[in-house]
């Protein structure tokens, strides 16, 4: 993606970058263990844990009973005893079974016991989409986690960040919720081979522009980048702020960008009500009302269940084409020959992440 124009830099997919991040963190910290349903199995969490058990042994890399809540508690107990834990869920939907342990124990332990102990646990969870995964395998429940004090919630969009933020999360003393969109897994980026940490609480400007700020995260950052590329063809220059962390939210980077473009569009990765986009609009309006030329725009999923049928789901999701048309309307710009729309048109099915995909997930 961005910054990948240097051909000398090695490229990895997002999934490979996650794997490398875990690998390097495990090498660095012999007290770090990895556990999750399917972690050492032949498909190894979409190959993101491939070979780890062979390399680090069955005393550090574990499969797991299907006991999401109990096992989250077990991992918290281990973390309280100084074992760093990476726990992995193939779908974020499954984590709903573990909300008691995450909210009542992991998030609160350090505070309620007056800083005497802490919970170094990273919980990776993957957001699904497409191929008819439907109501209970394709939700993005990010805002639920961001609501809870004591959690850090990160949503990397690029392979470079995926690795750096994974390493940083695994070094952190706090519970970190690590949310990945499944459709990011195949996307390549230049990823340094060395071990490095990326910030867990800072947004970053992925593309500079002067006309409008788009704040987005996860897969919607990628879609927004595509939209920005096409919009530049008609002279609309979009600045993209990739949130990276949704708890805490880096208000400084957002406000700085808005003060430059004077226009704010927030592209949410999930539903509108009670959302991260609502939070961002609020913080900008509260602290930067005078910076804005017009009322901010939110692009988010409609407040209903994700349908299974691709005939319905294709309309439900927002892509780069939709984002770009909304931005043009927002700025009252008419693209009479539909330059932008044509460029972003998707040929072929919309319910798969790429042409190589053969389903099911």
């Amino acid at each position: 993606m961005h910054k990948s124009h240097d051909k000398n830099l090695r490229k990895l997919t997002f999934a490979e970058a996650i794997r490398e991040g875990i690998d390097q963190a495990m090498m660095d910290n012999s007290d770090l263990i990895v556990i999750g349903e399917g972690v050492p199995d032949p498909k190894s969490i979409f190959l993101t844990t491939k070979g780890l058990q062979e390399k680090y042994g069955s005393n550090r890399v574990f499969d797991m009973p299907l006991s999401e809540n109990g096992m989250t508690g077990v991992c918290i107990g281990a973390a309280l005893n100084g074992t760093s834990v990476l726990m992995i869920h193939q779908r974020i939907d499954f984590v709903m079974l573990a909300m008691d342990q995450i909210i009542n124990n992991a998030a609160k332990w350090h505070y309620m016991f007056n800083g005497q102990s802490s919970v170094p646990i990273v919980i990776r969870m993957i957001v699904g989409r497409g191929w008819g995964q439907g109501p209970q395998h394709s939700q993005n429940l990010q805002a639920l986690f961001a609501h809870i004090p004591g959690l850090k919630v990160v949503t990397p969009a690029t392979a470079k960040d995926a690795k750096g933020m994974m390493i940083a999360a695994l070094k952190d003393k706090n519970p970190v919720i690590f949310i990945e969109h499944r459709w990011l897994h195949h996307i390549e980026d230049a990823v340094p081979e060395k071990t490095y940490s990326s910030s867990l609480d800072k947004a970053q400007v992925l593309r500079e522009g002067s006309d409008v700020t788009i704040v987005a995260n996860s897969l919607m950052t990628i879609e927004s980048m595509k939209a920005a590329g096409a919009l530049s063809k008609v002279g609309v220059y979009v600045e993209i702020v990739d949130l990276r962390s949704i708890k805490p939210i880096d208000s400084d980077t957002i406000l700085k960008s808005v003060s430059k473009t004077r226009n704010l569009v927030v592209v949410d990765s999930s539903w509108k009500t009670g959302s991260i986009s609502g939070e961002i609009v609020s913080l900008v309006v509260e602290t930067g009302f005078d910076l804005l030329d017009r009322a901010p725009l939110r692009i988010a999923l409609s407040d209903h269940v994700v349908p299974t049928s691709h005939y319905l789901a294709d309309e439900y999701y927002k892509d780069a084409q939709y984002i770009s048309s909304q931005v043009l309307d927002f700025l009252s710009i008419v693209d009479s020959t539909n330059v932008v729309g044509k460029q972003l048109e998707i040929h072929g099915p919309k319910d798969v992440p790429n042409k190589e995909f053969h389903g099911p997930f």
Partner: protein
Amino acid sequence: MTNRYQKLLLEAETELFSIYTQLLRIRRIEEAIAKRYSEWEMRCPVHLGIGQEAIPVGVSMHLTKNDHVYSNHRSHGHYFAKGGNLKKMIAELYGKETGCCGGRGGSMHLIDLEVGFMGSTPIVGGTVPLAVGDAWSAVLKGEKRISVIYFGDGCFEEGVVHEAMNFAVLHKLPVIFVCENNGYSVFTQLNERQATRKIINIAEAHGMQTHSADGNDVLEVMEVSYNAIKRARDGNGPQFFEFKTYRWLEHCGPDEDDHLNYRPQGELSTWKDRCPVEKLKKHIVRKDTNYEEQFQLIEKDINIEIDEAFEFAKNSKSPQIDQLGKYIYA
């Protein structure tokens, strides 16, 4: 059952007095909290364990400081039996800076890491998997110690407990499950909540080694737990205890609540006749002289210590307001 350990124990009067002191101390602390609760200075829910003192005292006799204990909402006895600091605990109930959580936890969140009391919380079932994870981590790190988790009969209805038991057995972890069956979840009797089968049979079906005893008889608790804890230490996997006992006071608060008629008539008095403190006292007295002087001395020392703890709590500073946002993250 003749057991060399018990024989030795019964002969060791000093040991018996020490056990008695622990039982009575917990009783008197709970009574002191109840008595002073109406002063409105301990402004947090309290779940008093009067009537249930023998279980943690009996179990903890076989624990060292290095062993870890996790607990639930009715945790005072567990905390003291493990050696938890009295002054810090009372100060915690007073919401003071010197409390064991600096006033952030209250009665439902006790901790004393110096003696291996890792934490208690009031979400029923919440700490059970934590103790299992704690034991798992100990094994992974090669620490030679065990973990103990206390919970009630109501907790046994939580799915997370069964998830935790499965994992403990699967990995043969050195963890002791202590089910304190007092027959009630708040006002609701066991037979309204659970099918007619034994709790230990379910634990056994999980592959757990199970043990049960009269939870109001501290010597019986000690005897049963001696062998079981040794088994866990020797790498034979998790052990499950069910101890029958009875809560004398209301579920939450300082008062009796028998007038609400949710307990069968006469049940409370029957259990009061089986008071764990008196039971041991009778055992000691039966052995020989009446030891009146010793008993008075124990009582006196305990009362002095309790008064000092309350003074300490009252005289301690309240937490600094500017610390309110501290410790959100480590």
